């Protein structure tokens, strides 16, 4: 690995400190790209003479359930024409379909969970982001059908073009979001590595060097989004003295990062994750203004409407039941939000876990957590690029 580090830093002309960081960045970019390429059905598209794809196991099961529920939706819309009570069935099916559907592509679970991993967001914010983006997604679909089909009497081609434009904007936003996170978090990782190294060179002292303090998240990784963990460590005398010392130190030198405020410390990408010696600004504390930080993620993810919702609404329109299609779209969005929120919560908990075990090795843990964040930022960027370049097949509306 050392040889790789040296080769990479020489090639890029980076200072010594940055060697492992640069290697890590490049490796994670390659891994992310590899993962995306290998698991995407687009590979089959890129070489259409390869084997036809097959879905089996869990993926196949989700796939078949989605297909059944999607078809059931149109069947129920037809039923509702003659029987009003079928509308309740429609809502029920729309909800379940939404839950399953979010497991498929194009529902931003990847971007949202990566965004949460990259930023120190709380699970509650993750849930809020999931619901907000699902709501935006429902609105976009309704807006397209409402304006293009109902008001303008436009064709499927017109709606396809509208979706295409929105899609490009959405992927562009994802790329911007990923780039910005990568920049901020990459610098954070470089800082964390430097702090770790410095600490190692001054080994043997209990008192951590002030550099460790300006290390992202102020060098006491025990404080994660699940504030409870940190509190438990505080109150539990049986916890290792190291943690106590760390916490103590944090209070002495890192007031800006005191975690007693109820919103956790979720510094958005706007706030550089190091060197803020002052107290948190009000806008950093979540609350109504906190939405601004998540807005980029909500819009980037929610902009792309769900093709299925558009097709079903147009079908409902042709049956004179547009409103049923509109309500079903919102219910679908609710189901989608639940799945995305569940995945997002898992992502946040996984990071909390990662952080928990990372405290066993002081300093290194910070590097590891920063590394995870950089990886997540790389993943967002990779998604954006691959989606825009058409390597990942999102849902398509044209084709016929």
């Amino acid at each position, binding site marked *: 690995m050392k040889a790789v580090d040296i080769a990479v830093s020489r090639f890029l002309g980076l200072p010594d400190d940055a060697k492992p960081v640069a290697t890590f960045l490049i490796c994670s970019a390659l891994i992310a790209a590899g993962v995306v390429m290998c698991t995407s059905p687009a590979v089959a*598209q890129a070489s259409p*003479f390869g084997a036809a794809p097959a879905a089996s196991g869990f993926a196949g099961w989700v796939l078949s359930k989605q297909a059944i529920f999607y078809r059931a939706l*149109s069947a129920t819309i037809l039923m509702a024409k003659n029987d009003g009570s079928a509308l309740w069935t429609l809502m029920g099916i729309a909800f379940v379909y939404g839950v399953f559907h979010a497991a498929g592509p194009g529902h931003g679970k990847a971007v949202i*969970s990566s965004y949460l991993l990259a930023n120190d967001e709380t699970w509650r914010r993750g849930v809020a982001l999931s619901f907000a983006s699902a709501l935006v997604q429902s609105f976009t679909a309704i807006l397209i059908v409402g304006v293009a089909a109902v008001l303008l009497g436009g*064709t499927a*081609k017109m709606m396809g073009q509208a979706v295409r434009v929105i899609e490009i904007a959405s992927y562009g936003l994802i790329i911007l979001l990923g780039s910005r996170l990568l920049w901020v978090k990459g610098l954070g990782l470089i800082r964390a590595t430097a702090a770790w190294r410095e600490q190692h060179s001054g080994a043997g002292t209990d008192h951590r060097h002030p550099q460790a303090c300006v290390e992202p998240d102020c060098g006491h990784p025990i404080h994660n989004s*699940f504030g409870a963990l940190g509190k438990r460590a505080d109150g539990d005398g049986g916890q290792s003295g190291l943690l106590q010392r760390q916490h103590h130190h944090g209070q002495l030198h890192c007031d800006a990062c005191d975690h007693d405020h109820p919103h956790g410390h979720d510094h958005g990408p706007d706030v550089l994750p190091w060197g803020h010696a002052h107290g948190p600004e009000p806008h950093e504390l979540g609350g109504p203004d906190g939405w601004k930080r998540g807005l980029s993620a909500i819009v980037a993810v929610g902009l792309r409407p769900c093709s*299925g919702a558009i097709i079903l609404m147009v079908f409902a329109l042709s049956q004179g039941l547009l409103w049923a299609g509109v309500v079903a779209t919102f219910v679908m969005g609710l189901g989608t939000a639940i799945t995305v929120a569940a995945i997002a919560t898992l992502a946040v908990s996984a990071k909390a876990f990662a952080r928990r075990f990372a405290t*066993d090795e002081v300093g290194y843990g910070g590097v590891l957590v920063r590394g995870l964040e950089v990886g997540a930022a790389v993943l967002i960027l990779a998604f954006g690029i691959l989606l825009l370049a058409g390597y990942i097949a999102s849902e398509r509306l044209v084709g016929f």
Partner: protein
Amino acid sequence: MIVPTLRPMRIGSLGRRLHLAVACWLLLTAVPAFAHPHVWVTMKEELLYAPDGALTGVRHAWTFDETFSAFATQGLSAKTKGHFTREELQSLAQTNIESLKEYRYFTYAMVDGKKQKNAFNEPVDYWLEFDPKKTELTLHLTLPLKTPLSARQLVIEVYDPEFFVDFGLAEGNPVKLVGAPPQCAVSTEKPYDSSFQSTPTLKGLFASSEANVGMGMSFANKLTVQCP
């Protein structure tokens, strides 16, 4: 403030590995899964032969499900409401063919087990037909082979690799050989067996375990012609 509390526990090397695995799993599952179909197509196919016994092309007749047909015909003007003529659908057919080019018309040829690259030319004739009773659209198109193929075993596959479109063969005899040598025989391999319902009933859908989905199998519909 309600926060989920996690019991403090000692995390050994096994625990670490487990949590790393969880993190990795999350990143992996975050990658888009398969799309699921939004368009269902019932296919009827004709394989066209030259007098010398070589396969010259494929003639598709693809019928779309009712939902997608409603979507595709949205905003199109018709003299008689709900009755679209071939002429009224011509511009839509044009759009279809242009869009299908990117997907190589979802049609692939194999000779003696070898996939042929870019085997087909652009469609020579194509049109859309609307069935006002079933409210279904059918796209007709003929794909000529760049070079006629003659071999002991020819395979034509029809599928959408992204599985946005679910292709299924029609009931009965969906594949015809047109002008083929009499000793040639065609066999079909479907990715699923449940019969296709363009307008499915709820009961039918949930009773069938497959609902026209190639679960656990390849999505490809294989048409194999053996000429001894």
